[in-house]
Each structure stands twice: as structure tokens, then as C-alpha cells.
């Protein structure tokens, strides 16, 4: 990424992109770089593998020995795996895990859709409509990313209580949208800026207004960017515990809240957490694998321009 050509001029983005791709390809095909990448990948994956192995071990084994010992025991033909943790996590409760799965989807989908919709419109405005105070406003939106969400929790919740929407899904959707918008607007704005000015001008000469340009010129070009941010936001919301816990209530709690409770009142059942983590991970992994090429491309392209 650091080797990318400094494309300060948005007039020649195509050559910039091509140049960058060439350099990237060259840098990445270096055997040393490849080895390093593999080593890093292995190191980063080990804890997850450990968690996966742990999730299939019986309770007493988890508590008394490390996950790596299974390989030795397995070679000696001992039965070292069990599905007990998954059974406990999925069915060991009076409330059905499915309810929480459904809640997770109900929470996540609008919490992805709402900020993307608003951010697209805002980003177009910031990128292609000249109006007074545009830069100041854009910097202000950008700067909002600095606000840590923790300090907004109590004021936001009081606002929801006085609005009377507390205890509904709206509180969670709105909160996630609020927290997502600064980054979403910034990223999508950078994408839109990269669209060649000549394209937009050509459309304008042909008589297209802002609405027409937005839908017929911008949207098709922005699909990777939208997908990239969509995955980003999806993972964030799906894995969120803080907002769900603070803003939600019994009827809106998603999977993460249930997983957090798996450890039991005094934390004694922590061995079930590994299984819970993998149950919760299934959906994000599918989403990520399905859309990962957009993820990488989108993140790179959006991040290079300031």
C-alpha cells in the first residue's frame, strides 16, 4: 500500500490505478514477501485453530490441558473430541438459540442498509455538488470519527427513553447508523472522487441531472465500494455486544448477548464459549468469503486518497 503511486491529481486516475496494480503485483510476487505473508498468516490463524479444536473437546480436558495436547492423544487412539459443547451452547437453555439468530439478522440488516443509503447520498453531495461550507462540513463529519462511542451511550439512551422508542429495534438501528456514518461517508466520498470528472461532465452535457448521474453513472461504478463497506459494517454490527447490551432489551438481544451469558452466572461454564464463538462466527465467515474480493479492493481504493 505504501508503494502505491501518489495520485494527487484525480484527472488521471486510470493510469494511477494501473501503475499501482503493477507495482503491487511486483511487490507481492517477491518470494520473500510471500514467505513472510504465509508465516504471518499461520501465526495469526493459530489462536483461531486452537479455539476450534478446544470447542470440540470435553469439558474436563479443556480445563486441565491445552488444546495442542489433542494431537498426541489422538495419535494414541484416545477419544478426544466431543460435540457436547455445541449441544450445550445450542440447546442447553430454555430459550432457543434460533430466536437470537433471528434477532441478529433483524438487528444487522437494517443497521447495514440505513447508513449505506444515507452515506451514499451524503458522499455524492460532498463529492460532486458545490455548495458553501462543503469542506468545513466534510471535515466536521470526518472528525466525528474521533468521538468514542462509549461516551455517547448514556446520553443516547436517555434520548431514546424520552422519545419513547426504547426497547424497540429502532434504538439499535439508529445507534449503529449514527456510529457508522462518519466512516461510511468518508470512504464512499473517496470512491466517488475517484470517478473521472470527464465521465460526470459527459453525463451532464448529455443533460443528466444529479439524480440521473447518481443512479446511472455512480451506482454501477460504486458496487465494489458499497460491498466493501457493507461487509465492514455487517461484521461490526454482527459482532457487536456493547450497543446491543446497552440499547437493547430482552426482545432485541442478538446472538452476541446470548454467547456472553453462556459462561454462567459466576463464569464457571467458560468452556462452552469456544463453541458459542464458532456458532456465532458461521454467518460472518460466509458473508466474508462470499464478498472478500470486494472487501480488499474497496478498502485499498478508499484508503489511499485523503
Amino acid at each position, binding site marked *: 500500500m505504501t508503494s502505491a503511486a501518489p495520485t494527487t491529481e484525480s484527472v488521471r486516475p486510470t493510469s494511477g490505478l494501473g501503475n499501482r496494480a503493477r507495482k503491487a503485483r511486483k511487490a507481492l510476487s517477491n518470494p520473500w514477501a510471500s514467505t513472510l505473508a504465509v508465516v504471518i498468516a499461520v501465526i495469526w490463524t493459530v489462536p483461531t485453530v486452537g479455539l476450534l479444536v478446544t470447542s470440540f473437546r470435553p469439558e474436563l480436558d479443556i480445563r486441565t490441558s491445552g488444546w495442542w495436547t489433542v494431537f498426541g492423544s489422538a495419535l494414541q487412539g484416545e477419544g478426544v473430541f466431543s460435540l457436547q459443547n455445541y449441544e450445550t451452547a445450542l*440447546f442447553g437453555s*430454555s430459550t432457543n438459540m434460533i*430466536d437470537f439468530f433471528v434477532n441478529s439478522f433483524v438487528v444487522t440488516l437494517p443497521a447495514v442498509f440505513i447508513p449505506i443509503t444515507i452515506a451514499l447520498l451524503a458522499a455524492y453531495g460532498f463529492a460532486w455538488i458545490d455548495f458553501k461550507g462543503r469542506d468545513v462540513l466534510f471535515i466536521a463529519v470526518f472528525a466525528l470519527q474521533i468521538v468514542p462511542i462509549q461516551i455517547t451511550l*448514556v446520553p443516547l*439512551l436517555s434520548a431514546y427513553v424520552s422519545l419513547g422508542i426504547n426497547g424497540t429495534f429502532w434504538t439499535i438501528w439508529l445507534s449503529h447508523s449514527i456510529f457508522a456514518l462518519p466512516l461510511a461517508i468518508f470512504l464512499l466520498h473517496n470512491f466517488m472522487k475517484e470517478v473521472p470528472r470527464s465521465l460526470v461532465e459527459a453525463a451532464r452535457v448529455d443533460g443528466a441531472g444529479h439524480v440521473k448521474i447518481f443512479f446511472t453513472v455512480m451506482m454501477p461504478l460504486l458496487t465494489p465500494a458499497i460491498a466493501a463497506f457493507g461487509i465492514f459494517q455487517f461484521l461490526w454490527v454482527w459482532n457487536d455486544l456493547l450497543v446491543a447490551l*446497552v440499547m437493547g432489551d430482552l426482545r432485541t438481544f442478538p446472538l452476541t448477548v446470548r454467547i456472553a451469558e453462556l*459462561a454462567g*452466572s459466576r463464569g464457571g461454564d467458560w468452556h462452552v464459549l469456544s463453541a458459542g464463538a464458532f456458532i456465532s462466527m458461521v454467518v460472518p465467515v460466509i458473508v466474508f468469503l462470499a464478498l472478500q474480493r470486494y472487501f480488499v479492493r474497496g478498502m485499498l481504493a478508499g484508503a489511499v486518497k485523503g
Partner: protein
Amino acid sequence: MRIQKFGGRRRAIALAGVASTALVLGACADTNDGSGGDGGNAEAFEIDCSAYDEFGDLDGTTVNLYTTIVEPESESQQASYKPFEDCTGVTVAYEGSREMEAQLPVRVQAGNPPDIAILPQPGLLNTLVTEYDAVLPAPSQVEANVDEFWSEDWKAYGTVDGTFYAAPLGSNVKSFVWYSPSMFADAGYEIPQTWDDLLALTATIAEGNEGAARPWCAGVESGDATGWPATDWIEDAVLRSAGPDVYDQWYTHEIPFNDPQIIDAFDMVDEILRNPDYVNGGLGGVDSIATASWTDAGYPILTGDCWMHRAANFYATQWPEGTEVGPDGDVYAFYLPALSTDEKPTLVAGEFIAAFTDRPEVQAFQTYLSSSDWANAKAVATPNGGWVSANNGLDLDNLASDFDKLSGEILADPATIARFDGSDLMPAAVGTDSFWSGMTEWFASGESTQKVVDGIEKSWP
């Protein structure tokens, strides 16, 4: 969701009479429960419904309850509310969260408190009353119940600045030592009756140390609460070496934390827990106490690597599945002996009921929870044991296990001098912070006692 279904159904059949309601609800619970667990037969316990007549017609109302008690313990909690729900038609919406202690102040500040919260320690009550002015004083019926069924001490823990707010609910007995009855029997060891006996037994066992085996095992790791099991050790030692009066002066800071009497108590613990010949059975050296998880620290007893593990009565539910807890089972516990046999200082803890609203159904439910009816219903609803209360209206025969009965007997014994877990009563900066971290340091890096107590004293606000 299940709770709301009950509400709807209940209204429809309210006229059919209490008995049939209970039947239908019982059937519902059976079909909905799935795995069952350890709740469900509280219908068997009958209470006198007329106690709640004075609150008027409550049918169809809902009380929101917020608590730290999550599954599986929550099942028997909810089952214990059924007699009340059947009597009054009130629905109790139960919300358990492990993050409750952090979340409750947030909800209170945002103007969105639950109706009732089960507070796991008096310190939280103190914070809620003094900082947020959010808790309502207990209604007269609750106070009458508490005067009748609980001792003065327990009532005092639910009182802040002379106003009585929170009735005690369940109780925990912390002064227990877990051991394996068969190991003791095979080796011919007796249950020690005094502290000196305990030390003598420890020394005897240590002589026969083989490999990783040691007389004691301990572990204080507990996530962001790491250190708390060690504070219980110290508190038990203060109660024994210095007595309950000094104990009271200690947690109220009438004497400093580094008072010589407190240092004596540290030395008592030091003699056992920081002696490499005595610890840490099956887990490592002295420093492994700091890193061993408190939930698993007693497990070496099961493998024979450890002989004794001091832990509260609720450790009974921490043993791995299939472990039999009983005088003839795999593990059992004895009372952590005092200096002499004629005193019985006991470290206890418990939960408290705080109300944030005063609707009639909320007060009726508060009254129920503070009654002996609830205590007995809870005992009956907990067939697997692991629960006890210092409510003197509790019939010990209703308790499920021998071990719970032992806990109940200790609580009911007039010779018992019960003192509440001191770290729960100290200011948060000490009780849930420097005391914990100080104890962890004490084990992890072998810090001198003087330095640790000085550090904790300095942090006292």
C-alpha cells in the same frame, strides 16, 4: 417471549381458578422448557395467596426484574416465582445479564431502570442510593417480613444512612473447605476442629508430598475480578484472629488497612498459601495461585493432587458434571475452623432486592421475595441444590442436598457469628480494585505483606 405468552394465556383462564391455572401453566412450562434443567416443580409448593390481597387486583400486570443470575441458575429462580404469579396473575419478566452491575447504573442514569433488581452486593446498593438517588425505600410489608425472618445484621446490609432499602434474598456461606471424603478416610485424617488442627493436618499431609501433590490448592484468577477469592481468605482470617468487632472496624476503616491486627491475619494466610510445601496442589508453585482460574482451582482434589480447597458454598455447582457432592461422594466441604471450637465466625455473602418503581405489583413481588414462602419455594424449586438462605423461615428439610443443609445449619446456628464479605462493603476503590490487585501481587510476585497492606491503605478514598 415465553413469559409474554404466559401473560396472554393467563388472562384468558383467570376465572378458571388458581388450581387449573397452575395445571395449564405447568403443562406450558413442560412443553416450552426443552432441556428442563433444574427448575420447574415449584408448583408443588403452595403459598397463602391472601398475603397479596392488600395490593388489589394485580392480574395481567408485569414486573421487570434485572439480575446477574443467568442460566442454569436462572431456571430455578424463575420457577420460584411461579407460586406468586399463580396467586396474583402478575407476570415477572426476567432479564439476567452477567454485565448487570455495569449496565444497571447506565439504565438508571438514562431514566430507564427496571422495576426490581437483584443486587449481588451491598456496595452496589450504596452507589445507587448515594450517587443516583434511584432506589426506593422498602415498603412497610417488606420491612415487616425482614424484621420477622432475618437477623439485624442482614437488615443492616440492606440499609443506607438509616433508611432500609433492600431485603436480602439468597445467602452464601463462604467459610468452607472442600475436600475428598474418601481421600481423608483412606489416609485416616479427621476433619480439623480448630485452626491449630488445620495447621497440624496440613503439616502432616505435606510430609507425604509426592510429585505435584500438596495439601492445598487455590486460584484467584477471575477475569476482571481477579483476586477476589484471596480477599475471602483474608476476611476469614481477620474474623478468626481478630474477631468480629475488629472486622467491623476494618471494613468501615475505623482502623487502617495496615493495622497490625490485619497483618496478623495476612500472616495466618501466608503460613498456608505462600508456603511452597503446602501449595499449589496439581497447579504449580505459589505464583500459580495468581493465574489459576478460581472455577477450576479445586479440580486437583478430584485427581488426588490436592487435599483441601477453601471456597464458598456456591463452588458446589462449579465441579465438573458427574462429580458427586456429599458426605460419601467425590467431594464435600467442612467448616473452616476457628481458633477454638466454641466460636463460629462465618463469612457470608448474599443478594439484595432493590426496587426502582412503586407500583402495587412491584411492591407485592418485593413482599413475596422477602417472605419465608419464597425461600421455601426456591428451596423446592432447586432440586439439584446449590442454594441456601439465611431466612429463618426456611425449612431446612426443603433444601435439596446434604451440603445445602449443612450451609443452612451453619447460617441458622445461633453460635454462628456471620459477617458479610468485607470487600463487598468497602469502597469500590478498595473492595473491587486495590484489595484484589494487591492480593494478586502478593501471590504473583511474592510482594511483602507490609508493602501490600500499605498500598491498599493508601488507595482508601
